[in-house]
């Protein structure tokens, strides 16, 4: 067997369930890996070694009696440091929040624990999940950003320092870092996963979601964290989530999906300023989807698509200003320059303009729903290129912003590497609450390509 920490979440969970691997041994392997790698990667804001050991011991005893808590029994996970964790500092990548210890877990964290996960620690985030970077580095090249804002979650997964993680996306903060680090990240439909207990950046744009090293692993995590939560009104009217992992395991259904799902290639926007190597990887990925049997066709984005991105930025800045204004009055100098500019400009956007931006949003949602009658999934590059060099920027969310604005689900699956060895991702997006279609296309692509599962040369 491979070193336990290098197993996929699914393989590790299976080994635990069959009694071939204990949660304690899995944790020990992971902690040894962290001791070797973390001083270079800086993925973790806080490690909870003692709590994790205690939990792994308890879960090992339960497993020995055949009592498995759920699909994550004994699996070490990392949680972005904007998710509240009972009794564990949640500093949100900010000096302002240093020392804040929540009394209770975010709903998603509680659901991970209930499913048997071992909460290994809090992963680095950019300041308040915005754009001022964390110390995290890209495991594929330590001189490059891992992306953001879920920087540490993506870096920890790529570096085999956990098997699952939580991130959140307001513009591009799950899909972009996942793509930069060569892992899989899924931004669910708005309302699919509870925001309760996740520090807001912009309420109507924030999407918590799962990250892992394989498509199926992300499906397992999504199944655990998705579903209605009285703490988040946006989740209450949503359809019940299907059993994503079991659906992927159904080979007949998976084969049928390849015959029936239609993949759309947008006519513009996603190719402006695209890095040539990333563009080549994207073209090859689309060719591969076609070879696999998916019906691939060109689609024309609706006319107000670009102005929708202006509307996103206005809503983002206004809501961020509203989140922070009370603290900002007295502690402005403690904010990073990028978030500060967002708050300051958000304060100056006229209220009718904010409402106008929300009208543009309604309009574009309607137009994109119509477009997604002709195809089931859109395929685009996940980022304008590989992870940029340097640690002062986390890269651009331009490819991911549309789906955060719309609230439609999106994911990234690795689709190649540049000559410099940096990963690039294929972004798939689809209709609200049809995450399964994205997972099916991504799983078929992943199975037919060599990119998932490679380890960075640390």
């Amino acid at each position: 067997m491979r070193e336990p920490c290098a197993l996929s979440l699914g393989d590790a969970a299976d080994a635990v369930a069959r009694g071939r691997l204990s949660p304690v041994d899995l944790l020990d392997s992971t902690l040894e890996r962290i001791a070797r790698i973390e001083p270079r990667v800086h993925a973790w804001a806080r490690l909870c070694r003692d709590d994790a050991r205690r939990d792994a011991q308890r879960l090992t005893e339960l497993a020995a009696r055949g009592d498995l808590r759920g699909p994550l029994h004994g699996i070490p996970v990392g949680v972005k440091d904007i998710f509240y964790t009972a009794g564990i500092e949640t500093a949100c990548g900010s000096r302002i929040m240093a020392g804040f210890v929540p009394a209770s877990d975010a709903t998603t964290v509680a659901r991970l624990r209930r499913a048997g996960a071992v909460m290994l620690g809090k992963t680095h985030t950019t300041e308040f999940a915005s754009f001022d970077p964390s110390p995290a580095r890209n495991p594929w090249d330590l001189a490059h950003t891992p992306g953001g804002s879920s920087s540490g979650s993506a870096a920890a997964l790529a570096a085999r320092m956990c098997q699952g993680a939580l991130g959140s996306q307001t513009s591009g903060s799950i899909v972009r870092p996942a793509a930069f680090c060569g892992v899989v990240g899924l931004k669910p439909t708005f309302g699919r996963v509870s925001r309760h207990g996740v520090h807001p950046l912009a309420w109507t744009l924030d999407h918590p979601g799962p990250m892992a090293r394989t498509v199926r692993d992300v499906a397992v995590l999504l199944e655990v964290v998705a579903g209605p939560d009285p703490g988040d009104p946006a989740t209450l009217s949503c359809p019940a989530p299907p059993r994503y992992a079991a659906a992927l395991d159904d080979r007949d259904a998976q084969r049928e999906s390849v015959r029936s799902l239609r993949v759309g290639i947008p006519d513009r926007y996603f190719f402006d300023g695209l890095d040539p190597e990333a563009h080549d990887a994207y073209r090859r990925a689309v060719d591969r989807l076609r070879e696999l049997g998916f019906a691939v066709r060109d689609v024309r984005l609706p006319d107000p698509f670009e102005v929708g991105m202006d509307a996103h930025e206005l809503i983002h800045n206004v809501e961020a200003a509203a989140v922070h204004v009370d603290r900002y009055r007295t502690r402005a100098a403690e904010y990073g320059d990028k978030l500060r500019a967002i708050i300051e400009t958000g304060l100056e956007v006229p209220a009718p303009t904010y409402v106008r931006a929300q009208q543009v949003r309604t309009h574009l949602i309607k137009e994109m729903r119509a477009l997604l009658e002709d195809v089931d999934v859109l395929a685009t590059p996940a980022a304008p290129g590989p992870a940029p060099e340097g640690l002062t920027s986390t890269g651009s969310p331009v490819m991911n912003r549309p789906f955060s604005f719309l609230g439609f689900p999106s994911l990234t699956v690795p689709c190649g590497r540049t000559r410099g060895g940096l990963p690039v991702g294929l972004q798939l997006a689809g209709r609200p609450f049809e995450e399964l279609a994205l997972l099916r296309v991504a799983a078929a692509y992943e199975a037919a390509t060599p990119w998932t599962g490679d380890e960075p040369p640390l």
Partner: protein
Amino acid sequence: MDRDTSRVVELRTLLALPDERGALFDDEMARTRRRIDAVHRAAVSHNTEPAGAPRLQPRDA
């Protein structure tokens, strides 16, 4: 003091904001002005329901 400056001063006084607006404010504000112009010019009906309306549930939901 021109009208725009006066409005900003009023806003900052009302919200008790600090005088300093940060090193990146001017660049972000230039982008914000362009975005404001773009959304108001958008070919989107003013009768459109804005996103973000309440999501209400019956009492026993």
